[in-house]
């Protein structure tokens, strides 16, 4: 298992799903235990990756390289660098926690956990793949489980949300598919002289021929990729699938959606668009910064207008992904490091918020912000945990969100002064919607209806506490994560900014 650590991280959940398929439907406890075990192994491997990862080199590590389809030069090519390791950690952690958080699922248990494990495999694959074809396969493989997870186990408007998510994402990915084919035919493999899907070869500008020599064509390909990734992030105006999907999805699936899937968009831009088309990336700085600012402010204002807690958290994701875009648009070391760190932190913080919303929804069976009041006295422990998550989301110093947002602003202030100043407003609005919600739900006179609500359970605490510790620890000692990625990201900045 030590040799092919990445493959095991991807395929162990698949094995788990296959085993679950043969367990009798009625044995739900067995199914859940298998699922938890199948998600726990990748988590252990992720920790091993974290320990063994060499932080000093820009080289790809843990590489696995085999030929898949010879005639078309498709390779099974996995490897990680400082950009992918934090994402893999996040995926492994959230997947395991979400399986635990799904313990109370009672509808079609077998299908739920099998699909969840397949979803995990797809996500892991995306963050490991270095062959574009393989990347695309993993990217698409995630759609199927996600569609079913929203559509079968979702809320009242699940059907609409599921197909909307699917259509949006597929529209983005077919454009990415065409861009991929364009790369294939216009990149030569320096060793064989043939065409290649190898991303490492694609990143070397010396291998570009044909179409990729023409600026217009490069711009078109950049835009096709950007649209594909923008829908996933989601960048305004392609964000409309997100509130629907997040609200209708069951809690654990919302966590994965916000915590991991959104990161794939920005990961794709940093993994593929930036290094393969650095000139286009540099030329796209201003639009990217503007889109970032729009996301920050628009998301924040929309969040403020929500009365549904889950929808509020969903829109706060739109806002927080804006910071990632702004950091990426900065094109300097602080900015990009901040952006990737923000990706990681947003994953953990949003996961906490969604899990907290799930806790109250399981008890009260609604999420109307105005329908509660004074919950702090009824559920003090829950109130504290939720407040912790919400403060982290605001960017309270000492918690991880602060560090990454500060880095993003530090970076972008150097390149986009005006935009940064406007974007800083987002912090204020962010504090406003979060505190206002906190006030309406937890403070004020107690709502008599909820006199009997039990406080947060041990299982729920078990899902929240580990993330909470990470949020706190990353706030105090951010270098734990920043060390992982800075070498690779600084190298990326050199490539793009020249």
């Amino acid at each position: 298992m030590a040799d092919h650590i990445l493959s095991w991280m991807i395929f162990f959940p698949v094995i788990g799903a296959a085993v679950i398929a043969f367990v009798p439907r009625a044995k739900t406890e067995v199914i859940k235990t298998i699922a938890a075990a199948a998600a726990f192994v990748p988590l252990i491997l992720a920790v091993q990756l974290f320990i063994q990862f060499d932080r000093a080199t820009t080289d790809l590590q843990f590489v696995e390289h085999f030929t898949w389809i010879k005639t078309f030069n498709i390779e099974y090519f996995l490897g990680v660098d400082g950009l992918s390791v934090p994402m893999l950690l996040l995926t492994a952690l959230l997947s395991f926690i979400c399986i635990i958080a799904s313990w109370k699922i009672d509808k079609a248990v077998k299908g739920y956990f099998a699909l969840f494990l397949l979803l995990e495999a797809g996500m892991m694959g995306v963050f490991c793949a270095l062959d574009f074809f393989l990347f695309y396969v993993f990217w698409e493989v995630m759609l199927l489980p996600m569609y079913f997870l929203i559509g079968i186990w979702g809320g009242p408007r699940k059907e609409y949300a599921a197909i909307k998510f699917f259509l949006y994402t597929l529209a983005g990915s077919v454009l990415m598919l065409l861009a991929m084919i364009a790369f294939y035919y216009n990149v030569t493999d320096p060793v064989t002289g043939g065409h290649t899907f190898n991303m490492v070869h694609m990143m070397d500008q010396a291998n570009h021929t044909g179409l990729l020599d023409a600026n217009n064509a490069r711009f078109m390909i950049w835009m096709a990729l950007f649209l594909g990734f923008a829908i996933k992030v989601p960048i305004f105006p392609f964000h409309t699938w997100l509130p629907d999907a997040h609200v209708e999805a069951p809690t654990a699936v919302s966590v994965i959606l916000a915590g991991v899937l959104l990161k794939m968009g920005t990961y794709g831009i940093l993994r593929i668009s930036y290094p393969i088309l650095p000139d286009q990336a540099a030329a796209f700085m201003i639009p990217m910064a503007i889109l970032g600012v729009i996301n920050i402010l628009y998301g924040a204002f929309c969040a403020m207008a929500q009365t549904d807690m889950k929808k509020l958290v969903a829109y706060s994701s739109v806002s927080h992904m804006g910071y990632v875009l702004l950091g990426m648009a900065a094109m300097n070391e602080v900015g990009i490091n901040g952006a990737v760190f923000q990706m990681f932190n947003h994953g953990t913080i949003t996961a906490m918020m969604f899990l907290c919303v799930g806790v109250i929804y399981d008890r009260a069976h609604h999420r109307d912000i105005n329908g509660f009041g004074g919950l702090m006295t009824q559920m003090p422990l829950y109130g504290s945990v939720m407040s912790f998550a919400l403060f982290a989301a605001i960017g309270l110093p000492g918690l991880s969100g602060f560090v990454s947002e500060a880095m993003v602003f530090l970076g972008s202030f150097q390149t986009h002064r005006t935009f940064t100043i406007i974007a800083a407003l987002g912090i204020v609005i962010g504090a406003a919607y979060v505190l206002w919600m906190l006030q309406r739900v937890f403070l004020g006179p107690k709502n008599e209806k909820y006199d009997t609500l039990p406080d947060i359970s041990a299982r729920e605490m078990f899902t929240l506490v580990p993330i909470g510790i990470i949020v706190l620890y990353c706030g105090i000692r951010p270098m734990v994560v920043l060390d992982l990625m800075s070498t690779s990201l600084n190298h990326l900045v050199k490539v793009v900014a020249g």
Partner: protein
Amino acid sequence: MLNVETLNIPDWSTFRAFIPETVMLGAFLAALLGDILSRRRTWVPFSIVLLACVTSLAYAVAGLDIEAPVSILGQLVVVDGLAAFFRVLFALVATITVLFSWSSEEIMGKTREHKGEYYALIALMTGGMMVMAEARDFVMLYLSLELVSLTSYVMAGYMRGSLRSTEASLKYMIFGAMSSGIMLFGMSLLYALTGSMTFEGVRVALTSGQADPLALLTIIVLILAGLGYKIAMAPFHFWAPDVYEGAPTPIAAFFSVGPKAAGFALLIRFFYTSMQPIVDQVDWPMLVAVLSVITMTWANLAAVRQNNVKRMLAFSSVAHVGYLLMAFLMLTDEGLQAVLFYLLVYSIMNLGAFLFVVAVNNSLKSEHLNDYAGLGFRTPWAAATMVVFLFSLTGLPPTAGFIGKFYLFAEVMQQEWYWLAIVGALNSVVSLFYYMKIVKAMYFTPVEDNAPVVRVPVMHMICLAALAVPTLVLGLSWGWAKALADRAVTVMAGM
């Protein structure tokens, strides 16, 4: 003075290349006789035809490693890589159709008549399709096309008592006769222009002499009308939804892959042999490109509105013709390989999707989307295979449909038809919507309490699995299947 040499009587060594179709045509006669002699015991013709299908498949597979084209009857028919590939495809499709017809209520129900003849007709049609893939002469083209068409008309009207089935048959025949006539006119013009009845002769004549571009364009349009009808290309596709909906589902399943692939075989052979040299004079690839865009867009948009699964799948099968035409008009070996590979993949997944409809129809007597509610929980394994087929038809990895579409798009991109690739890709997104309508009904819509039990016969389950497994396997390891398609193009006659 009669010269025996000029009669071109085939000797045994050349005849050996033609065993698969001979077996099928022989099985037709044997099944008819068997049906009568056994006093209409259906298992007799069924066994004869099934045995013939398997034998034919075995010989067809053995014939795949053909080294050089073999012709008999002069230039009339030829067995080359292309024909060998299509024969395997047809034998495979026929075998599966025969197998799942056996447990289908629509074919074998108590009130049905002439069940034995049904199997005999499948054998006849399969033999006809094989000859279609081998024809390289206008006489043979027309004869084989009509053989398949006439059999189709009869089969579409198999449910004699059903108004829908009879209507389908009549519609099919009127459309078919019309487009055959148009095509014949085109062929006669071409003969007048070139003085040749063979594809090769036409090619030589067109290459050597300068023909009037307008005349050539007229001929191409007329012949496209005839062949376009067979493959259900817009705007000659109107019959398809009605016929597929009206005909018994196993027959519709067969129509949507068999004759369609055979039509493509003819299309490929005729256009790649005879019409390739005149691309400079008449830009017919552009004409086909426009038709391909119309075909897929029209069919996809029409399918979105359907609530009858069979009708939806009928439109979907029209849409796939559009995708196939995209790569067909590239006029390259790679494009042709992509078309052949996609036809193979399409046959498997489309047959699978229709077969699921057959299986459900057995219990529910309905193809309406509303009756599909909760099938994912009422018959979990069969529904799971349907999900595989639908994802594959959409073109999502890790299914064979994705790989097939990938090769189509890759070739279109390489030949720098970017707009065509973009239209095709966006069409895939549209198609997702209606395919997922079926998935939605099966999994997301709650089951009503009084919903009838769905019992999928063992034979159907075996067939579904036999189609779903390759759909998945070819999505992960397709090198060997692609190699077959590549080889078919390499050993193609007259290229």
